């Protein structure tokens, strides 16, 4: 059963998603989706029952009944019912999560099941006592009547259908005079395991017996009291084998495949170095081909790892709905670009930051309906979550049309919290002031709710995105709204980097951090307040020596000109002076582990073509000044 479990879990997740989406639509008044929701509940029920997950099976069974009643107009949908159905979905999700952990279902389905069944009123029917008689009809039918006693299997489930099938078969053989229990009860399945049919027939006992046993499954036994049949045909037809189109693979396998491809990329660069060193021309063609192959392989694996953002986005409508309801706010939530794809690892990491941003939108951004009306806005606030592909990265936008971020208020709070001084605050531009919300220790929630303002600030969000090699931008206008723009790389494992040397070592700077490279002559450098700067197109650019930044003594490089790599850091451009530029290369990122994990300034390490290890600079966490 274990091998089915993974398939069961992943497929059930999809159905739960359908349920959630559908319920949200249903709540908006879209009755069309009910068939789809019903189907999802139904399929889940069958799957859960097969796996023996009784809790899930029982919940979905009741959901199915209720949905069926709604579909047929017997029960009218209201928000109370939708809440209840959501509650049921939550419980199913809890069960699935527990199963994912390798545990049992760990849910109690009785309460929700009984709540659900209350709407459909599927109480137990009263059983009427019924005796075996019917001698009257049998007498009337005259001679040639046989009583066929059929006993069904102990675990036969749809008894009424088995009875129906028996009827159908017997009708082929003669005329049914009477049955016990009566037809209505047989149709309702309201009988124990056996029933009797009185048949006026010319068929032999064996014929009757054989026909039933052959045509009707789940029959434990047939007895015929009194005396005959039809032949059967059976034929085989030819067919051909057909193959399956998709295969499910666990993410770990893709991870390890990606790792192997990474190693291959490293070996490839090693081969190139050897070729160059010994100038082996014969290797040219083969290496060019290997180069092409590894590139395709890498692209292929990356492609496989891509998952639609809907995988994460689809759980938000429900969350937004619940939050808005709790806060007494009216929110229209719009999701765009669900089909944009991101590497699974990146996608896994952005879930929490997005939850945080969306919560902020509803908690701090969107005003209560009365306040919005006073401001002359529509009563319903709008929150939008949008993904789009921009060149080699994906942009995710979270925006609302709420209060906006008031720079003056931000400054005041920052001063109160001692993050900046009074003096710093007065000279600060509105843009810079808004960026303060990303400072650790800043939380502008005037009242702490259980939704946001729990001390986990936006700095965590920003750090997470930066750690992924992405950026966060913020635009806001008071009373018009706020927009967060997250730019994310498509993948994490392999990236293009600029290799540079400084102090005799080689370092890699991820190319997405690099904005340009300058060759700076000594005489262009000036010192302003103890900081070396250069003029770049009329702007002052601080220049730091990489070696000094890394906390080593400056090597006093005597040359007249040095390369300066211009990088973006915290929204500003800075220059990093290095000894030598080596070139651009694809590198495989290996994370720093254990004690090295928290070392600031480095994003990881990589293995160079010649086998040497070099460190990858993490511009975001590099300490300057």
């Amino acid at each position, binding site marked *: 059963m274990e091998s*089915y479990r993974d*398939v*069961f879990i992943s*497929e*059930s997740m999809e159905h739960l998603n359908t349920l959630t989406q559908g319920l949200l639509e249903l709540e908006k008044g879209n009755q069309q989706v009910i068939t*789809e929701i*019903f*189907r999802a509940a*139904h*399929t889940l*029920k*069958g*799957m859960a*029952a*097969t*796996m*023996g997950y009784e809790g899930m*099976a029982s919940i979905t*069974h009741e959901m*199915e*009944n209720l949905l069926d009643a709604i579909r047929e107009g017997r029960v009218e949908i209201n928000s109370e019912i939708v809440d209840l159905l959501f509650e049921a979905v939550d419980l199913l999700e809890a069960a699935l999560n527990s199963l994912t952990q390798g545990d049992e279902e760990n849910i109690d389905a009785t309460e929700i099941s009984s709540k659900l069944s209350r709407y459909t009123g599927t109480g137990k029917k009263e059983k009427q006592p019924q005796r075996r008689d019917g001698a009257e009809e049998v007498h009337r039918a005259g001679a040639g009547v046989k009583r066929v006693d059929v006993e069904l299997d102990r*675990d036969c*489930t*749809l008894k*009424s*259908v088995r009875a*129906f*099938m028996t009827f*159908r078969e017997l009708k082929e053989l003669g005329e049914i005079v009477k049955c016990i229990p009566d037809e209505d009860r047989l149709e309702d*399945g309201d009988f124990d395991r056996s029933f009797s049919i009185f048949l006026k027939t010319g068929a032999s006992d064996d014929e009757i017996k054989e026909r039933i046993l*052959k*045509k*009707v*499954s*789940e029959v434990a036994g047939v007895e015929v009291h009194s005396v005959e049949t039809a032949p059967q*045909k*059976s*034929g*085989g*037809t*030819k*067919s*051909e*084998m*057909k193959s*399956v189109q998709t295969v*499910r693979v666990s993410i770990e396998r893709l991870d390890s495949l990606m790792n192997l491809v990474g190693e291959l990329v490293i070996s490839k660069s090693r081969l190139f170095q050897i070729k160059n060193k010994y100038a082996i021309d014969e290797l040219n063609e083969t290496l060019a081909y290997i180069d092409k192959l590894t590139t395709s392989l890498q692209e292929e694996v990356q492609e496989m790892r891509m998952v639609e953002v809907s995988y994460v986005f689809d759980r938000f409508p429900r969350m937004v709905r619940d939050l808005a309801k709790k806060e007494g706010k009216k929110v229209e939530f719009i999701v765009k670009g669900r089909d944009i794809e991101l590497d699974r690892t990146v996608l896994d990491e952005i879930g929490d930051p997005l939850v945080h941003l969306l919560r902020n939108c509803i908690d701090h951004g969107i005003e209560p309906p009365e306040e919005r009306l006073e401001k002359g806005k529509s009563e319903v606030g709008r929150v939008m979550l949008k993904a789009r592909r921009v060149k080699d990265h994906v942009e995710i936008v979270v925006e609302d049309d709420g209060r906006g971020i008031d720079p003056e208020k931000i400054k005041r709070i920052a001063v109160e919290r001692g993050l900046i001084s009074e003096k710093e605050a007065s000279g600060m531009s509105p843009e810079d002031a808004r960026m303060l919300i990303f400072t650790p220790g800043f939380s502008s929630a005037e009242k702490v709710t259980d939704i946001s303002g729990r001390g986990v600030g936006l700095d965590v969000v920003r750090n997470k995105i930066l750690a992924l090699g992405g950026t966060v931008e913020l635009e806001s206008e008071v009373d018009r709204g706020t927009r967060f723009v997250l730019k994310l790389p498509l993948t994490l494992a392999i990236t293009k980097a600029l290799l540079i040397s400084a102090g005799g070592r080689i370092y890699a700077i991820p190319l997405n951090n690099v904005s340009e490279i300058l060759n700076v002559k000594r005489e262009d450098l000036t010192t302003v307040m103890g900081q070396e700067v250069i003029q770049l197109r009329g702007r002052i650019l601080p220049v730091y020596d990489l070696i000094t930044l890394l906390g080593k003594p400056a090597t006093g490089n005597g040359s007249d000109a040095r390369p300066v790599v211009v990088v973006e850091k915290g929204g500003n451009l800075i220059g990093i002076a290095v000894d030598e530029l080596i070139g651009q290369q694809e590198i495989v990122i290996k994370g720093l582990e254990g004690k090295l994990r928290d070392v600031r300034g480095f994003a990881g390490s990589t293995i160079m073509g010649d086998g040497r290890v070099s460190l990858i600079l993490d511009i975001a966490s590099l300490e300057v000044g």
Partner: protein
Amino acid sequence: MAKILVVDDAAFMRMMLKNILGKNGHQIVGEAQNGAEGVEKYRELRPDVVTMDIIMPEVNGIEAVKKIMSIDPEAKIVMVSALGQEAMVKEALEAGARDFIVKPFKESKVLEVIEKLC
């Protein structure tokens, strides 16, 4: 040994059936995810037996039975039903389905039904 076409919208269910039937010497010649695809596959593969889920997107199992029966009146179709679908199973049987199995199914039941048809 029978050549079997499995029609079900849940990959999980297809996998269960495939496994049960496969290890007991039957050959799964095809799979379909909905009724329409099931009818197409039937036309193409002419299996000995079809297992047909009832509730499926687009064309449901009952519609599919009707269509397959019109292509091949000798078709042997086994409905795969859940509890509480008596009426639909009956409808399918009236449309020409030969038998049915109920989810959650036991291996022995599935085999009993399939072998009865062969």
